[in-house]
């Protein structure tokens, strides 16, 4: 525990450790052993060439790459420990420095609980835009994932249109989890450079970043790897997310699944570093345990919460930022289960120090978007952030003068000290703290108010628009991509 008497950022906050330094070492060593002897599949010609040039053994038939541990370790050394995610509004830039937890909307859902009809229906581009617009207005949401899939748009340009919709409706940072080919990546980065005001600006303050999924166990998608390399070349942050799940795509034991997931993530990050040393990368994970009856990805059990904390310790060990899958309840509706799962997962990942936290608003294991859930998730975020501020013990906080003034048997209600400091206490917006009689007369009030808050923002919030010329430029780039997806591929990516 810190003994500092003044509360400075990062000192007073609570900290949680679920793995000892020795345990982290064991996981690291085991991971290197797996990468070197079992191997990881990289079905990408480009990746295989990079690996072969750096001392790895490549099986061109299976695509399995076996890499000596020292190659992985040396490559990870060049990854920057901290950097900034830019935003259209620079005041909304996000430092990834291990001292901040930034919450995003979840992604990528396929259905929307319609805020007006309350029916569940398939998601569209308009939903992507609407969700981004509501999130733009919510302080708790720091950046965006594409929350739902624009299934009314052709797959060829869908990921590009989704990101454009986010920029058009929010000034906050946009992170894509659905750009999974080199061609799409090249075009979206061209778009990002346009919004950023050039390639150098994109590199310095990237207002776009990329998240790719691994294919557990121990495999990557070739397109995701190629897309990541395109991002790395442009200095656009890219992370690899493992969802290795106990008893399904990973061993039944938590430690075993950590090793499998870790091998996937650090092998991808090492590849990026070998290709473009010093490029910004991050660790990402959303591990869970399989539902033993259905085989389904669960999301929200005690294993998830432990994974959340453990993964942060691993990313600290590798000294790269972390994006952690939290929230994303398995519940079908914003209920007890949703509150429990999202509260615990958000707390565990936050108190462990995740830089990016995914994400608010989706139900049913990241399938169904709910505005009500999104708003209720911001309440959870408020509780967690308040806990992260910890307990300052400076002179003002110890309040000795106030204690002396009131003395034994008095009250603090009318003390000036109270008025000065009471707003530092967390205030509920949606937790139901009403008297019983009021609750009984209108039990649904908090849920209704959460939904109404979203409806109000949907009706009234006008985000700062893109410059019309820039808006048109985004359309032009998407049209050029539709005509020839390879239009914006760099020489490196074509080689």
């Amino acid at each position, binding site marked *: 525990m810190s003994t500092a008497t003044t509360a400075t950022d990062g000192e007073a906050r609570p900290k949680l450790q679920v793995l000892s330094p020795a345990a982290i070492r064991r996981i690291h060593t085991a991971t290197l052993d797996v990468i070197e002897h079992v191997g990881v599949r990289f079905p990408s010609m480009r990746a295989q060439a990079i690996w072969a040039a750096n001392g790895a053994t490549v099986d061109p038939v299976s695509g399995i790459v076996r890499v000596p541990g020292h190659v992985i370790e040396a490559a990870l050394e060049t990854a920057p420990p901290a950097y900034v995610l830019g935003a259209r509004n620079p005041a909304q830039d996000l430092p990834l420095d291990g001292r901040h937890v930034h919450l995003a909307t979840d992604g990528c859902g*396929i259905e929307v609980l319609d805020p007006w009809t309350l029916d569940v229906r398939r998601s569209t581009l308009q939903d992507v835009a609407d969700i981004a617009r509501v999130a733009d207005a919510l302080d708790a949401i720091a950046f965006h994932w594409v929350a739902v899939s624009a299934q009314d748009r052709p797959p060829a340009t869908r990921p590009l249109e989704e990101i454009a919709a986010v920029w058009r409706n929010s000034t906050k940072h946009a992170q894509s989890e659905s750009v*999974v080919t080199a061609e799409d990546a090249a075009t979206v980065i061209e778009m990002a450079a346009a919004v950023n005001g050039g390639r150098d600006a994109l590199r310095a303050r990237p207002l776009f970043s990329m998240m790719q999924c691994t294919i557990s166990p121990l495999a990557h998608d070739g397109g995701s790897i190629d897309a990541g390399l395109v991002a790395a070349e442009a200095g656009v942050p890219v992370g690899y997310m493992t969802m290795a799940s106990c008893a399904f795509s990973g061993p039944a034991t938590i430690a075993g699944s950590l090793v499998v997931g870790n091998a996937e993530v650090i092998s991808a990050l090492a590849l990026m570093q070998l290709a473009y040393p010093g490029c910004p990368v991050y660790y990402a994970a959303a591990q869970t345990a399989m539902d033993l009856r259905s085989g389904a990805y669960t999301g929200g059990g005690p294993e998830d919460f432990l994974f959340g904390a453990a993964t942060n310790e691993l990313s600290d060990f590798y000294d790269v930022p972390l994006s952690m899958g939290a929230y994303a309840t398995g519940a079908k509706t914003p209920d007890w289960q949703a509150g429990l799962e999202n509260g615990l997962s958000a707390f565990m990942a936050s108190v462990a120090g995740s830089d990016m936290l995914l994400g608010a608003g989706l139900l049913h294991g990241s399938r169904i978007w709910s505005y009500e859930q999104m708003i209720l998730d911001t309440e959870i975020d408020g509780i967690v952030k308040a806990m992260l501020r910890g307990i300052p013990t400076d002179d003002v906080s110890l309040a000795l003068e106030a204690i002396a003034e009131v003395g034994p048997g008095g009250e603090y209600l009318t003390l000036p000290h109270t008025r000065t400091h009471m707003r530092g206490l967390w205030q509920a917006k949606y937790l139901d703290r009403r008297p019983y009689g009021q609750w009984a007369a209108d039990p649904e009030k908090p849920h209704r108010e959460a939904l109404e808050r979203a409806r109000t923002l949907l009706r009234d919030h006008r985000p700062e628009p893109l410059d019309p010329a820039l808006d048109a430029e985004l359309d032009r780039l998407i049209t050029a991509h539709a005509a020839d997806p390879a239009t914006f591929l760099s020489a490196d990516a074509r080689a």
Partner: protein
Amino acid sequence: MGDEIFAAMRQSVIDGDAVAAAALAEKALADGVPPLDAIEIGFVPGLSYVGEQFGLGELFLPDMMLAARAMQKAIAILEPEMARQSATRKVVGRVVIGTVKGDIHEIGKNLVGMMLSTSGFEVHDLGVDVAPDRFVEAAREHDADIIGVSALLTTTMAGQRTVVQALEAAGMRPKVKVIVGGAPASESWAAEIGADGYSEDAIGAVALARKLLGTDAASA
């Protein structure tokens, strides 16, 4: 003697012990036990027991998978002799499965294939990244009753519709049923693309296949 070996066969499936199941199948052949009896009286009751316990929540998916694998091992050994005797196991239905073009996710699809095959379906697995025409060809080649199309990505799930359309173009609908699965699929998606059904998991896929073929009352 017969009862003992049948009991051991049943137990090998319950234990999910593929090595024991294979050894018992070999022994059955050596001892002249009719291969069909070995399957129907020996191994199948083991799988039924596991299925029953699974339904009660006492056993889990890995138990089912291991039991299914043990059973598959045994059947593979017994099959040549069955063919020689012209004995055939009753086939509930013929299913062609695969993951759509552009998608290489296979765990869910494999799970469905294994559950179907141990439930008495003849399963032809085309693997991953399967073009619509391959589904059509395979359905024709194997005289399939059902085609199961898997997709894990919202960007590839449109391929499920393409398979339905390809079958229609080939004049094989509605005789050949199409079932879809995978994270982005849903009941309403299945309806929208004109597929015959959707299941959220592998167990449900078996029930769905049985329902489509009108054999759902046959066994639990």
